[in-house]
């Protein structure tokens, strides 16, 4: 495994009290693997990703272990972390307009990564920048390099962001809802682009999304998150066919499928909880249709069964 997350917890100290945004997450991403991290808004999936990249601000307390090639990122000294971030681990954000520096040209932003993480000279860096734009499907690279983020369209901005993230050939790309802010047609292009680049460059991809359709289309494995905890992991095929967690099952029933015209969508009642304290039992119990007595009092552990894991009493006994 190249990325191994063990018992990751994130506690936010807010003016309205403490919030357990991530409550003991275990997650692995192997070399060249595409893992989807799905969940509703507020399930802690984006916070998990940012905690892995060590991007959370001072009011967040992160504990646990985020091990990258055997070394813990959370306790690593700053200079070593700087070499890994950008060099071995790249990240793509949801809103490319906000994630690109508005006052630096795209060319300068690519160049800066190459200066930080490679030994290339100025000429080689420019050649590499042009090659990167070509890779991500931005035409007229020589002109585009001198332009600024506001001169790009939404889809082109995300392509530029991906080019920047990939400049130093990272082995793992963290993607935080990379297609959510884009048109549906552009979404598809960007996902295809990410998959093509993954194959060409042999990198792994950890994709955070709330869109099960995106997961089905792109991922090898999926981890379902609810209220700061992982409910279930497994191959996309296994999890989508036979969910081992009641929450996953409910999510899938709420998703339109190919037979959408003939089957009714079943919404999940209620709201995701505010995580002002860790739930005593299963966090999904109050909204669960399959809830058992012990679900409200006892926290289900993530139990491994072959290549998949699940933390559900109701479905484990079936």
């Amino acid at each position, binding site marked *: 495994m190249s990325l191994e997350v063990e018992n990751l917890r994130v506690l936010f100290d807010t003016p309205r009290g403490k919030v357990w945004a991530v409550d003991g997450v275990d997650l692995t991403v192997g070399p060249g693997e595409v893992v989807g991290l799905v969940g509703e808004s507020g399930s802690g999936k984006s916070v998990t990703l*940012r905690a892995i*990249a060590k*991007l959370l*601000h*001072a009011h967040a307390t992160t504990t646990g272990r985020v091990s990258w090639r055997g070394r813990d990122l959370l306790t690593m000294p*700053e200079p070593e*972390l*700087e*070499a*890994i*971030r*950008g*060099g071995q*681990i*790249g*990240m793509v*954000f*949801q*809103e490319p307009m*906000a*994630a*690109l*520096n*508005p*006052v*630096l040209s795209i060319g300068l932003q690519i160049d*800066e*990564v190459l200066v*930080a*993480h490679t030994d290339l000279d100025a000429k080689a860096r420019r050649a590499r920048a042009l090659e990167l734009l070509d890779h991500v499907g931005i035409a007229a690279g020589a002109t585009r390099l001198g332009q600024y983020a506001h001169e790009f369209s939404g889809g082109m901005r995300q392509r530029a*962001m991906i080019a*920047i*993230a990939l400049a130093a050939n990272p082995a793992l790309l*963290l993607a935080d809802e990379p297609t959510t802010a884009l048109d549906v047609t552009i979404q598809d292009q960007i996902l295809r682009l990410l998959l093509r680049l993954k194959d060409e460059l042999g990198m792994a991809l950890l994709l955070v999304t709330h869109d099960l359709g995106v997961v089905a289309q792109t991922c090898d494995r999926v981890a379902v998150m609810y209220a700061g905890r992982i409910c279930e992991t497994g191959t996309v095929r296994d999890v989508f066919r036979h969910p081992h967690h009641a929450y996953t099952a409910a999510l899938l029933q709420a998703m339109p499928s190919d037979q959408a015209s003939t089957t009714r969508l079943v919404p999940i009642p209620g709201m995701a909880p505010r995580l002002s304290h860790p739930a005593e039992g299963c966090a999904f119990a109050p909204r669960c249709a399959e809830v058992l007595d012990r679900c409200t009092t006892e926290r289900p552990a993530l139990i491994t069964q072959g290549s998949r894991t699940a933390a559900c009493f109701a479905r484990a006994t079936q």
Partner: protein
Amino acid sequence: MGLRTKLPLILGCVLLGVMIAFAVAPDVFSPMDPLAFDYDALLAPPSAAHWFGTDQFGRDMLSRTISASRIDLQIAIFAMAGPLLIGSLIGLLVGWFGGVADAVFGRLADLVVTFPFLVLVIAIVAVLGPGLINMYIAVALVGWVVYAKLMRGEVRVQRSLDYVAAGRVLGYSTSRVLFRHVLPNAVRSVLVYAVTDMALAILLGSSLGYLGLGAQPPEAEWGVLIADGKNFFDTAPWISLAPGVAIVAAGLGFSLVGDGLASLLDVKR
């Protein structure tokens, strides 16, 4: 943006352009030697020979005002640059790191703004002794607070944006993220304020000059020129006219350019 909204900016640039031209080459624009005495024209009223009259030694007021513009421009620049540099750096650091430094800064800033600006500057100059250098020191000691507060607010907005997170996740050091990414994005409103602040700096320099705390004779400065004319105000009020007009024009020029830049760069104030 139409001509109508650009007009103040253009007008301001013209005013400042004239002032800078005067400051760079006063000899070219002065009709006569600003220091030459003319005993045939003592306290002469405005005429074709002396557009703005002469003072008690027969010196041409227009020429004196033009040659004084160099010092006033210098005041505008240095009385702005000190607070700008110190304040921006402090604002950048406390805005980014927050915590104890930010809390200390907040109290210190509150303490400084409690005093009226001019009173505090005059008090510091009075302690250090009159002169331009001491005036710059006093202005820097008091004026940095406004810049620091502006910068701190901007930095706190910028640091939560994703391009900062993107910079960090690309493996850039804190100083690199701060100075290459955050600073250029946060500095815009500070620079706009700085241009407007130069108008105030000129007024301040003239005020202190008038009070005898700023530029010292023989350095001619507009405030000093006005003070010179004070004694003859009943008989020769024109002595203070040219430097007075110059101060108003320069102040207006900097204000118009500042406002024009603010709307051009879409800085909210």
